[in-house]
């Protein structure tokens, strides 16, 4: 047996062996029951740039999520033409710090984008996020407006309410997707947190998703899967969300929440508004689909 023959045999045998392995559909609920407690990190401080590094430490730091050479997406909420102090958009320093951390962890590219509700250029400019990314001065950090050509129809196989939607290509073909929502009030879904922030990578008529918002967002969470969720609660908008506009509705609490479990992050953030996790329909729907933990007793909160 020469070397070539050996390699060929190994290849064929392993293909054959793989095909014979039976496949089981394991119920997500069963998996969830066996999982260890979800880890969630909490940090408070006024220096938002430094706060990001602190909140990531208990989770093993950015290097636990971004490996050298990774293509990374940092997805803030910059959906409205509002200034940072109005609390309707993710704080630019938080976004900037995450991008810098990802670059330091060796990311080959970091993309920042959001499909905005108000006019894109105005949102990018007035949220301060565009400037913050440009200031990093690293060609690997890219903030680009949404390119309509990049929306591709995606099957949502596990969807209970929606089974197909157009999703932004960059959000799908990346190695690490980091979700950076801002925590705020919302008329229909009561709060908008991590799962709702995923709407910013969707094409199509997003308004129609509101007709069954909780389940729709949970369905989307089966295909848009952040490795890391960092919820910006440095300022939280208590009323007139998701846009706000009146500083009186904004409360400064200097808090960041980070978790690898998107549902746990949302569930915990709900408590900042003095609500229970089950007040948010998308959290409940995502939990029941086994996408993460919402039982606060089963979430291990570490204060950094």
């Amino acid at each position: 047996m020469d070397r070539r023959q050996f390699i060929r045999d190994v290849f064929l045998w392993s293909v054959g062996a793989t095909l014979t392995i039976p496949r089981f559909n394991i119920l997500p609920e069963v998996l969830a029951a066996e999982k260890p407690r979800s880890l969630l990190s909490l940090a408070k401080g006024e220096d938002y740039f430094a706060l990001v590094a602190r909140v990531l430490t208990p989770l093993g730091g950015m290097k636990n999520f971004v490996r050298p050479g990774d293509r990374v997406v940092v997805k803030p909420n910059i959906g409205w033409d509002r200034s940072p102090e109005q609390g309707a958009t993710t704080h630019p320093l938080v976004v900037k710090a995450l991008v810098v951390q990802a670059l330091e962890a060796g990311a080959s590219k970091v993309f920042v984008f959001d499909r905005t509700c108000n006019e894109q250029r105005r949102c990018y400019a007035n949220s301060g996020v565009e400037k913050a990314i440009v200031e990093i001065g690293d060609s690997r950090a890219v903030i680009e407006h949404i390119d309509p050509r990049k929306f591709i129809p995606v099957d949502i196989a596990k969807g209970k309410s929606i089974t197909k939607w157009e999703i932004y290509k960059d959000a799908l073909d990346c190695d690490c997707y980091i979700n950076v929502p801002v925590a705020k009030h919302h008329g229909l879904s009561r709060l908008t947190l991590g799962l709702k922030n995923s709407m910013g990578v969707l094409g199509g008529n997003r308004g129609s998703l509101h007709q069954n918002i909780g389940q729709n967002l949970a369905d989307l969470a089966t295909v848009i899967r952040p490795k890391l969720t960092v919820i910006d609660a440095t300022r939280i908008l208590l009323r007139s969300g998701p846009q706000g506009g009146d500083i009186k509705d904004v409360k400064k609490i200097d808090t960041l929440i980070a978790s690898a479990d998107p549902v746990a992050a949302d569930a915990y953030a709900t408590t900042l508004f003095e609500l229970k996790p089950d007040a948010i329909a998308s959290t409940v729907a995502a939990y029941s689909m086994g996408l993460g933990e919402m039982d606060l007793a089963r979430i291990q909160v570490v204060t950094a």
Partner: protein
Amino acid sequence: MHLPGIRFSSSVWRRIGQSLFFALFLFLFIKTDYAGVDELTWAVNLLFRLDPLLAFSAILAGKTVVALMLPALVTLVLTLVFGRFFCGWICPLGSLIDGSRHLFPPERNNFDPGRRQLKYYLLIFLLSSTLFGLPLTGLIDPFSLLIRGFTFAVHPALDYATTSFFTWTYQHAPAWLNALTEPVYALLKHMLPFAAKVYGLSVFSLLLLLAVLGLSSLESRFFCRKICPLGALLAIFSRFSLFRLAGGTPECSKCRQCRNVCRMGAIDAERTVTSAECILCLDCMAHCPGSRIHYSLKRQAAGEQAIDLSRRAVITSLTAGVLVPLILPTRLLARFADPLLVRPPGALPETAFLGRCVRCGECMKVCIGNALQPAWLEAGLEGIFTPRLIGRIGYCEYNCTLCGQACPTGAIRRLTRDEKQVTVIGRAYFDKNRCLPYAKGVPCIVCEEHCPTPDKAIKFREAKALNSKGELVELRKPYVIEELCIGCGICENRCPLNGGAAVIVTAEGESRQRNSITKDGY
């Protein structure tokens, strides 16, 4: 005119001048857009403010001096000194007509002076009808014609063509080709609309522009010779200009080269240049075999044709301008204005607005939401091409004040952001027969989410409703608080229903006085 080793002929200098001004026009046109800051960086309305026809028109309509339009005086003074250089060197429509002359080669010889008085009669009619309440000047002003054609049709069409092509390469071409094409696309995108735009009357505006260019196949610069009222106004001044072209002498014998090349038909059989018609293209200078034609400080030549207007025609156009506006109060519009005609924030009261607006389309070009659209007959014949907001096409961005900045005449006032945010352009109402929570028992309130006023004008009530399955569901039913609504139209725009929206903005309650709604009341 001496460069080392090169000597350009006079008409080459003119061509360079025309190209530079056309490039400036294109630059300003492209820059009529949001550029990352609330204030427009470039005075894109500059061209319009140099236009004395529109200045006269706005001043006559408003019966006040419009300070914004004072730069037009410069044009008039320069015309008194140098002649009608504006038409030959600066006017971008003139340059476009010249540039496209090979597409529409003239059929006839160039020297027919017939009917060139038409433009003077048109000018007289337009100015007198404007004074008496029917402002139509903007419809035919060369800048307005050009910019409307570009804004509504040419620019969006170029964008569509470019984007289609590069979408195809993006989706189907191999990666190495995309490495070449994508940077080109990115570069082109700087010159095209940021997002795809659509406009009402786009085909009509393009046809008007093409008609103006196509008329040149009858005679070169047909529009400039016989129709353009701005040309007519400048001609009246250039008749007395200090500098002018002259030259032809009896020594020329049978040579009439100058007359043959004149694109304006401004040179008669005796080789006398009619300075009112001469646009100083300088072709005659360049083509004169004896170099006898000069541009210099001269008095009017004895044989030069005057502007030979017939007294009867002048009186007719003047009277027509006075009489035609009398028909206006007989229209339904005089008693009941179209409630769906929503004007941009800062628009003057309707009559003053129509008088000031020069139909240039700049506000619609700069409108960041593509919300402002040219009206057709909703505001009457005199309202064609004036801006109106169509919520289903676009909405008025809460923080944006660009239309007032771009308006060259102040028909839309320049508002600060704070002023704009409390300027009511209309109010929304719900069509409960279509609105999902009311009609079908389905949760929605996208309108409430998008409502931009800090204290939302759209609020909701918690309610129970039966859905189509007969289930009793808890949901939120939206309603409008009139005192808070400014009519921006984002609710109408974002309403997720297919087809018409279930929340609709009408002009009711707008800040400017409406002087024509149910005049007599009850």
